[in-house]
Structures are given as C-alpha cells and as structure tokens.
C-alpha cells in the first residue's frame, strides 16, 4: 500500500473528499517553493502534485508555462526536485507526493535510475502527460514494480471503448481532466462533470479526482462534491507568480482546501 492508497483509505473512512494541490518545483526559486511545499499539509492539502519543470510543456497553459520557466531560469533540475522531496520527507512521512511533468527529463536520466532515486526520495506517484497507455512499457509498468503509482489522465475524449485501456495499468487514483484543453482553461460545470465521473467510477474502484479550471473555494466544493476530490493547480501557481509570500499562498490554499472539504 502506497502513501496514496493509505491517504484515500483514511479519507474514505472519515467520509471526506480529497483536496489535491499543485505547485511547480523551484518556482519562483528553490527556497520559496520548498517553504510552500512544507506548508501544504498544514493548509489542508491531502495529496501534493509537484511539477517537474520542462522547457516544452505542451499540455500546459501560460500560467504553468511561466512557472516552469521561472524554475528553470533559477537553475532547477530533476536532482534538486528529488532533493526537495527528500527534505520534505524528513518531517512528513504521510502526505503523498505525486511528481507531475513530461517524459524527457525522466528518460534522459534513465528510467531505472530515476525510479530508484524517486522511490528513495519519497515520491509516491507519477503523472507523465505525454505517456499514454500505448507507451506503458516506457515508464508505467516499470514504476509499478518500484511500488510507485502511475496515475493516468482520463479526458472528455476518453470514450467507453477506450476507457478500459486507460484504466488498465492505472493505480493510486484517476485524474479526470474536466475539459478538452490545457491547464488554466475555463472551468467545467459540476452538472457536466458528475455524469462523467459516474461513468469512470462504474469501470474502476480507484478514486476519481477532477481537475482543470478550478479557481475558488466554491468551485472546489462543487466539483469535489460530484467526485472523490478535486485538484487545483494554475490558480495557486498564479498567486506564486504574482509574488505572494509563502504565508499568503498557503492562506489561499487553505481556503480552497476548506471548500473541497465542505463537499
């Protein structure tokens, strides 16, 4: 059982929805982002998605693109991101961390070496946007052997015929992308998302978390209400990009978490 499985089991026992927050590692600089990371669990975050910066984030909107550029300009590397997680784990051994990004920095390091290092650092899951089920042999299957969850995105274009393929080697949870589009796009309505989540849940026992376009506590509550939880990324990253202090960012995150937990 990974930290992700344990967290969702605990939330289920409490009858609570999950609040998942995304930040970019190294944004705006290593020290600040480490400070924000350390504060996320206290702000009510159940699962952390930590962005791995990449020069060509082709599924991300301007907010996350700029965060990645800030991180890279500040000298963030895959090693520094792994070190950041290892430091976090010294004080928190329960909050799951999912590394989210693109395949090339991982492929470049070598899949086996990466998985060993990621496991050792305390990473629990991976979301790699440009690895669909058709490329499962690359990283998805090896990751499971290391006890690292491989979390897949399901989207509005994932029809019933394709859904089993998407779910097949997925573990941890399913991330439902509520719109066709890039991160930071307009929000989907809970009334549209609900039936989609039900469709996915009828095909899997995994928790289904919904993301894309959530910016306010009310939206977090509404979306979490029709799923097992929700993810907020761009809205938080926007605060960081605007130069807010870690305390201000964490206060903003607390509000969103409270919204999701009201659901």
């Amino acid at each position, binding site marked *: 059982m990974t930290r992700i499985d344990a967290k969702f089991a605990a939330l289920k026992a409490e009858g609570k929805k999950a609040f998942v927050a995304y930040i970019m590692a190294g944004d705006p600089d290593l020290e600040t982002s480490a400070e924000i990371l350390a504060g996320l669990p206290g702000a009510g975050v159940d699962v952390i998605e930590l962005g791995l910066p990449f020069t060509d984030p082709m599924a991300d909107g301007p907010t996350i693109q700029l965060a990645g550029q800030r991180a890279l300009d500040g000298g963030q590397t895959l090693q520094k991101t792994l070190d950041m997680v290892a430091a976090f784990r010294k004080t928190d051994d329960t909050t799951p961390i999912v590394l989210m990004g693109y395949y090339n920095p991982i492929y470049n390091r070598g899949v086996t070496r990466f998985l060993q290092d990621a496991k050792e650092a305390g990473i629990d899951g991976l979301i790699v946007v440009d690895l*669909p089920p058709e490329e499962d042999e690359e990283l998805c299957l090896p990751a499971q052997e290391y006890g690292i969850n491989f979390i897949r995105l399901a989207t509005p274009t994932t029809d019933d015929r394709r859904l089993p393929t998407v779910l097949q080697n997925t573990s941890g949870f399913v991330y439902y992308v509520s719109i066709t589009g890039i991160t930071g796009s307009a929000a989907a309505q809970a009334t549209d998302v609900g039936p989609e989540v039900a469709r996915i849940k009828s095909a899997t026992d995994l928790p289904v978390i919904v993301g894309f376009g959530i910016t306010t506590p009310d939206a977090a509550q509404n979306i979490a209400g029709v799923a097992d939880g929700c993810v907020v990324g761009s809205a938080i990253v926007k605060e960081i990009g605007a130069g807010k202090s870690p305390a201000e960012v964490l206060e903003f995150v607390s509000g969103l978490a409270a919204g999701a937990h009201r659901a």
Partner: protein
Amino acid sequence: MSEDRPNSFMNAPDAKGRFGIHGGRFVSETLMPLILDLEAEYEHAKTDPTFWAEMEDLWQNYVGRPSPLYFAPRLTEELGGAKVYLKREELNHTGAHKINNVLGQILLARRMGKTRIIAETGAGQHGVATATVCAKFGLKCIVYMGATDVERQAPNVFRMRLLGAEVVPVTSGRGTLKDAMNDALRDWVTNVRDTFYCIGTVAGPAPYPAMVRDFQAIIGRETRWQLEAQEGEGRLPDTIIAAVGGGSNAMGLFYEFLDDPSVNIIGVEAGGLGVDDRMQHCASLTGGRPGVLHGNRTYLLQDDDGQILEGHSISAGLDYPGIGPEHSWLHDIGRAEYVSITDAEALGAFQTLCRTEGIIPALESSHALAHVIKIAPTLPKDHIIVVNLSGRGDKDIFTVAKHLKVDIKI
C-alpha cells in the same frame, strides 16, 4: 507506401509507430483517440485508389508535377567531378516541396469531416502551403508561427494572410518553430473535435512521420524514372543528397532508394556556426542524443538535465532542435550518412548556384548543395549525384543580403 517485403528498409515503422527505438506516440490522453482515428483513416486511404487518383490529379494540375530532374551542366563543369542533377521541387506551386504533403493531409481532413486546420511554421513555407490548400478547399486555417520568425519572415506572413489564414504569433518559450509546435499542440488539445493538425514534416506522433513521408515519396519515385529516361534503363543515382531539418524533403527523396544498396544516401544538417559545445547549430544527429519531444522519440538537442535547447541556423526552416524519427533510425543502422554544413558554407553554395545555373535556391536546399560542392570534385565523372532542390530562395534574399552586408530595404 510500405509493403511487406522481408529484409526491407521500407517496412518501418512497426505497429507502434517505431523506427527502431525512435518514433512512437508520446501525446496526452486527450489527443490519443484522435491520433488513432487518424491512423485508421490513413490506413484506409493508403489502399484506396480514389484517394490516390485525387492526389495524382492535384499533383499534376495544381502543383505542376512531375517536377523536372535537371542536369546542371555548368555547376558540374565548375566542380570538375561527379555529374550533378537537381530535383526541382522549388518549381512546385508555392515554391517548395511542402505542398506535396499538405494536399494529402487536407484530403484526409476532408474525409474525416474536420473543418478547421491548424499548422505550425518556421520559415513560413509550410504555413503558406497550408494556407494555400485551405483557400482552395474553403477551410478555416490557423497558422502558429514564432514571434521571432513572424518578424524575420514578413513576406510569408503577408502571403498567408492574403490567402485567408489567421497567423498567430507565438510568444511562449522563445518564440521559434519549437514553440509554434507547442502552441499548435495546445490548440489541438483544446479544439480536438473539429480540428485537424497539419504537421509540416516527418515528425510528431505516429502516424505523422510515415504519413508525411508517404506523401513526399513522390519525389524519389519521379527521380527514379526521370533519371532512367536521361541516363538509360536501370541507371540509378550513385549518391542522393538532401537537407534535413525535420527531414521531409529528404525522406521524400530517400525512401524510394532505401532498398537499393548501391545508392549512397546523405542527409545534410544545419551546422550553424559550427557543431561544437557552443550549441550554435541545429545538427540533432551530429550534436544531440535520443529524447522525447512533440510526440516522438528522436535525436534532440538537449542539456544534461533533459531540457530542450534552442538551435541556431541561418535558415529558419532548419531551425529546430529535433529531426524526424526515421532519420534517427537510418542514422543508427547506418543506412544513411548524416553530415553538417555551416551557415557560411550554405551562403557560398547559394551564390554558386545563382551564378552557375541561374537558379536561386532556398537557404535550406543550399545546405545540401554545399555538401555537393564539397564531394563532387572528389568523385569520378561517371558518378551521378541527385540533390533535392527543395525550395526556391526568393524568401531568403533579405537574409542573404544582410549576411553579404548589402542594404536592400524597400
């Protein structure tokens, strides 16, 4: 088109879109169903005689094919060695080989009921070809172009707009071809249901690399019979040469000859200011290593941490940090040789062709010519070189003038 022949280099890619370790389908889930639909549609069209009949008709009557295979007597004489033929793709409608492929993809888009066409462009040649064919068929066309390129390729931007296309300057990243491709992919993810992404080169997720190659393979097929007509039955070229950015004009020429072992195949990458640690070049095979970008695995210019680097080339059309996966494979297995040519060498070749044959070549094609100029003098007089003159140089005269320190502002 690939047929099942044992021990053939023409069978790649495999069912997973792989050329050796290269290629594949590295795209987000939102796009995956569409990629599979496109693959099915293409597999069907490939063996559908009515599809190819329509292509033949357009190639002949709209593009002006076959393009001539021209023996270049004065260039040959000046070099004093091998006999040089030019495959005149620059005489095609819109001035380059790009339209061969665009026609194929737009016919597919029509079959799939897609009404909105998007494309990326660097120098603007693929953008102009896409805008042209969209105008011809009355389709909405959006072209993503790096803001830097919009500025340095103003005439092509105006051309695209005249043809009714919307040109979107891309400011994300560093505003070049790579970023234009990122933004085109972002558009596609957002508008996946009505939009067809018309990729301009033999790269991207499967089926694009093989599909674009098949649409460009007419170049090599014509070369074979045209050379026989001029040099006698059964005479093959001894060496074929083409410039490689993404590599579509090169694959178009090479594919037909992959299984003719006597034919030397040479791809010419953009060496920029020189292939060394400064990384001021776009020679992915010579100076890069395998990685994953824009839907496929291939050789890429990247740093130690797997971050993609910006290349440099005098030619905007070669200014891309990757290369089509089939070239990466041909390089790995040694079926083709890849060399690089610097900005300065390409500029020299540009001027040589103008002066000896009265043909202004594109800077992209000038890279291939520069390699011909290097090796032809060392080869016997009965050695036949065919070089792909993939585009005409009218678009490049401002860049060339600048490098020659001539002021032609109008």
